[in-house]
């Protein structure tokens, strides 16, 4: 009750933000460019295949957009002092946090919805209808992905007392998981085994790689399309010189032994769920006792 009140007010406030509309516009623009570019290549893929190309721009834009939408949610109110008014009213700190999470999640979900409607309209005009099931599934997992990053951002926002720290953590999180994660995973492997990963590797290494929420999203998107989709390339430090063809590089052929359950695509949903819960819980524990004076 209390949390939904905070959420409604927060959504109403954030929905009037130019930043939000800027992000939505950027998202639509990106989708437009990708769809159009896919259209103009020599042998245009099917409408649904074109849609699946969107995984890459989603991986790049949605996390940064969600972090921007969420990183000031709590710490911004602490810096401006408006939290004194909000918490002066009978709202528990947990309700304030949950309300913020719901409000900003709503904002991102709305942005994603706008982007996907635009994408569907563009595809319909240029290539005909897309597979409705894949479209809905893709939109749903993308909204989930966006909300996961909102939860991470709100968790960061609740954990710190200055805007600078919140921004640093949010930006650092984005950089690490979008650009350096595979290199870090290779580094961990090197530290343990004394060599960089080769063609055939233990299963845990692949799990480590997809612990990144951005990688996990790629596997969740694969679920929606019912086939492997391409995500952003992260350039892991791996020695793949023994590979003789593309089938050698398939996951099932690289894992030593049986493919464990945690490398199946559905498990990426569990990983995303953990990312949606753990940082915001840490944030709550820190915010619960924070000095708001």
């Amino acid at each position, binding site marked *: 009750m*209390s949390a939904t*009140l905070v959420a409604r*007010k927060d959504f*109403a*406030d954030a929905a*009037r*933000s130019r930043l939000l509309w800027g992000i939505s516009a950027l998202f639509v623009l990106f989708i437009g460019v990708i769809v159009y570019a896919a259209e103009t290549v020599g042998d245009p893929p099917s409408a649904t295949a074109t849609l699946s190309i969107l995984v890459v721009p989603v991986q790049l834009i949605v996390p940064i957009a969600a972090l921007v939408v969420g990183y000031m949610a709590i710490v911004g109110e602490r810096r*401006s*002092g*408006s939290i*004194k*008014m909000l*918490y*002066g*009213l*009978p*709202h*528990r700190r947990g309700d304030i946090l949950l309300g913020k999470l719901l409000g900003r999640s709503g904002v991102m979900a709305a942005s994603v919805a706008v982007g996907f409607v635009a994408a569907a309209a563009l595809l319909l005009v240029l290539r005909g209808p897309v597979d409705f099931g894949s479209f809905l599934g893709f939109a749903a997992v993308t909204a989930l992905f966006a909300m996961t990053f909102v939860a991470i951002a709100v968790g960061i926002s609740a954990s710190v007392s200055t805007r600078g720290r919140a921004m640093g953590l949010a930006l650092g999180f984005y950089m690490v998981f979008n650009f350096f994660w595979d290199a870090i995973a290779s580094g961990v492997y090197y530290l343990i085994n004394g060599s960089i990963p080769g063609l055939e590797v233990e299963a845990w290494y692949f799990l480590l790689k997809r612990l990144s929420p951005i990688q996990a999203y790629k596997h969740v998107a694969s679920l929606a399309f019912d086939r492997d989709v391409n995500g952003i390339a992260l350039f892991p430090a791996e020695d793949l010189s023994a590979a003789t063809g593309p089938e050698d590089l398939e996951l099932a052929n690289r894992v030593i032994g049986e493919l464990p359950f945690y490398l199946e695509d559905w498990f990426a949903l569990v990983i995303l769920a953990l990312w949606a819960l753990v940082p915001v819980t840490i944030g709550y524990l820190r915010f619960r*006792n924070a*000095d*708001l*004076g």
Partner: protein
Amino acid sequence: MAAIETTDLTKRYGDLVAVDGLSLSVEEGEVFGFLGPNGAGKSTTIDMLLNYTPPSGGEARVLGHDAQSETMAVHRRIGVLPDDFELYGRLSGRRHVEFAIDSKDADDDPAAIIDRVGLDPEDAERPASEYSKGMAKRLALGMALVGDPDLLILDEPSGGLDPHGIQEMQDIVRTEAESGTTVFFSSHILGQVEAVCDRVGILSDGQLAAVDTIEGLRETAGTGAKVTMEVDGTPDADIAEIDGVADVTTDGGTLVVSCHDPTAKAEAIARANGDGATVRDVHIEETSLEDLFTMYTTGADADRTGESGTGRSDADGQTTEQPEVVA
């Protein structure tokens, strides 16, 4: 039951002690002025009453509930006007009031609240980012009044208000008090507390320097005086040593002696007019409430309380000397 009861309430930030063992009791239904210069610890105290800030030691109870462990029970029955706050810039003033009404599960009419704090109904529809500081203060006061709270906590409520706004704010405080609401209100300006408060607590360096009614403070102030003397030469006698003298300052031929004991005046003049100097003129000014506040909250305060305990009887004995005043 006391509306506010603090026991040994303390807040430390590293080496800095912001609030130092504060024990304070505010009765139900009274208007209590919490007075002190900026940095005395007023806001920190309020922050602890509202559980914005956890105390380093001691305890605060508000309306019978523990401020820390029963925060919601407290917040449901109070109205808060914070000192330093910002509004939700993109939301209208009216939306703010509606949010407060929904949050407190109250049945107030937003328009009536907006009218009561003197906010223009048209302004109430504008986004709060366009509000002046005074308008923001009025709106926040309106939000505090929602739900007919049992206790109003107002932190520097007059800041940013023009004299007319201050008058209206004081009227609202009086009306609330008449309806039985306890009002706890902080200020660094005595005049604004004086006009509405039943009792005043003066905070200095995190400690309670005095708690009294305005009447009581006035009586205390009435016993003090400032003696300004035009002298030629420098008096040899040590005037500052006289019991009942708080402070002595010299500026060229002007000697200013602050006394908190009426009997010290004559002795001060007598000593000034002794060897080495002649008093040409004397001007005596009764201490105002303002002076008293300044005494309580500046360094002079420490000297004053330090000496007053032992000073009286000695000073009495010395007043038999007739001062020679040269007109």
